[in-house]
């Protein structure tokens, strides 16, 4: 009888120890991540970065949902995250509107929402803890500043002779297209001799960029600078410039954006001059934000991505490390 009592006591002690350990041990956090789909190379790099950063972190567990470009899939995914009582939701919005109800449900369940890259509409933003992503206006300004410095360093810009600039815009109405154009113009307005003589929609694709550049060159063979809203268009335009018998990078200064691998190769080959990074590798910063959240730190309402710029001075060195 006594023996049974001892066993019971032991079991009881063991149970207490286990449950205390369970509470004290670093509980893993479950992260729900709903991505828009795989619409572009940039998005693929973004998805992989976030997934890898979370799965490589032993204290985090990821529940992933690919919305395949459909909002209803995404809303369903967020609802299922709420039911599973995840600790935090990472979320890239497909469109801006229509998420109010489901975000409110998340708020009632006390699940913080961290948005990545694409925000929801302003009136729903108060459900969201923070948004991380690129500052497109700043990217446009960087391009402008780079150009100003390059022109000055090479003695091309004397402040009065007109500089003939062509611009390949991103898809009409897309946020990066609007903001990058704006940012570039913020700098251009301080240089009255910069003339953006040609500006067309290149749809963010190389084939469209090439076609538009072909037409630009027929209308005006004296273009000096090409500012493309992404590298794909710049790379397409480079081919058009070559076909016109001009030397890209020398006869026409070429500035792209996003910093994709192909553009690095073009810069190293001397066929392009500069690319402003639009960093899709948001994973590490997202994981950092989650840890800050766990530690009870207050997150800023906006987390800017760390981004740099590359030209002939640093492209060759950075090329081997580029992941996308």
């Amino acid at each position: 009888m006594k023996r049974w009592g001892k066993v019971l006591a032991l079991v009881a002690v063991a149970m207490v120890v286990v449950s205390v350990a369970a509470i004290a041990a670093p509980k893993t956090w479950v992260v729900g991540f709903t991505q828009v789909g795989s619409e572009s190379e940039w998005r693929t790099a973004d998805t992989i970065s976030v997934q890898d950063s979370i799965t490589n972190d032993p204290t985090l567990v990821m529940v992933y949902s690919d919305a395949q470009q459909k909002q209803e899939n995404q809303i369903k995914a967020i609802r299922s995250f709420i039911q599973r009582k995840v600790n935090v939701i990472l979320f890239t919005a497909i469109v801006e509107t229509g998420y109010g109800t489901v975000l409110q449900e998340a708020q009632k369940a006390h699940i913080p929402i961290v948005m990545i890259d694409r925000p929801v509409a302003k009136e729903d933003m108060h459900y969201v803890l923070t948004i991380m992503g690129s500052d497109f206006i700043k990217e446009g300004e960087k391009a402008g500043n780079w150009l100003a410095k390059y022109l000055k360093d090479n003695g091309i810009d004397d402040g009065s002779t007109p500089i003939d600039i062509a611009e390949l815009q991103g898809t009409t109405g897309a946020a990066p297209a609007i903001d990058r154009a704006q940012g570039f113009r913020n700098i251009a307005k301080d240089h009255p001799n910069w003339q953006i003589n040609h500006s067309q929609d290149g749809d963010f694709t190389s084939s469209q960029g090439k076609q538009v550049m072909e037409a630009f060159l027929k209308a005006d063979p004296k273009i000096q600078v090409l500012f493309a809203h992404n590298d794909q268009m710049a790379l397409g335009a480079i081919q058009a410039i070559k076909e016109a018998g001009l030397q890209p990078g020398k006869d026409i200064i070429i500035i792209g954006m996003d910093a994709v691998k192909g553009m690095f190769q073009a810069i190293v080959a001397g066929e392009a001059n500069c690319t402003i990074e639009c960093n899709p590798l948001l994973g590490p910063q997202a994981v950092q934000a989650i840890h800050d959240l766990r530690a009870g730190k207050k997150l800023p309402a906006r987390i800017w991505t760390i981004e740099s710029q590359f030209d002939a001075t640093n492209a060759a060195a950075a090329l081997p490390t580029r992941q996308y």
Partner: protein
Amino acid sequence: MTSWRSLSRTKIVWPLIALGALLLLNLFFTPHFFRLEIKQGHLYGNLIDILKNVAPIMLLSIGMTLVIATHGIDISVGSVVAVSAGAVAILIGGDLAGHPKYPIAVAMIAALLVCTAAGMWNGMLVSRVRMQPIIATLILFVAGRGIAMVFTNAMVIWLYAKPFAILGQGYVLGIPFSIYIVAFVLLLTFIFTRRTAVGMFIEAVGINPTAARFSGINAKNILFWVYTFSGLCAGISGLIVCSTVMSADGNNAGNLYELDAILAVVLGGTSLNGGKFYLFGSIVGALIIQTLTTSIYAIGIPADVSPVVKAFVVWAVCLMQSERFRTRIVRVFVRKGLSA
């Protein structure tokens, strides 16, 4: 007058007039639009750009013409373009020094085989499973891009193998090489459909498949091969698209091309109700679309307005095609003339 009447009844006249009007507009609004120079041993100018950039749409519209003639439609062609580009790119490989992984000819043939198989899939669904064409081809419209993404690993693959560039960027006798490809495919298709009874069979199936079957035409096989041919055309088109920019982009290659191809066929005078088809009309239709695009760039119409301009031109050309509209207009003018 009588000769004008008989001329105005031939379908090809109206798209030609529209094309002429577009070019005339450029004569006034775009200085140097018609200027041709010789640069790097080939012709250089806006007109050459039009020819070079229209080739992929022309190829699609040749296949699409036959499909539409059978009272069908193939909305998968844009995605098949991406499949073709993805397949050829992955087989040639993105080696910086330009050494292809597999011989370029092998890569091209493999890509064409994949696309022909895609066409066969469509053809099987339409002719054997008897799915409605728009639904049958919707499957590959969606899945095609997925297949292309699997090929390219959802990345843009850049190619550096120089010989492959001939397809989309090369010139023969000063004229873009891609136009010779179009001419070759067009000629073969024309001979095969118009110098044999095949063209009539296709039209018969389009007008009334049951009657066609009773008169001894194997409607099922006609349908099957027409979609297969459309897949092959999309494959060739994809090779040119890939070669033009030396890259394969699973997301964007051939995006919305199916609409341009359908539009080219309709502008060319072939009815979506099937029946009579006009191969050369479709070619002119494709030229109208590309001339319009190039004109918009050349005139410098702002990006945000250009879709409206495009829509207006398409609307006007479609109205011109309508016989009922034309007779109404004529009647209005005649009445005015009488009362004056």
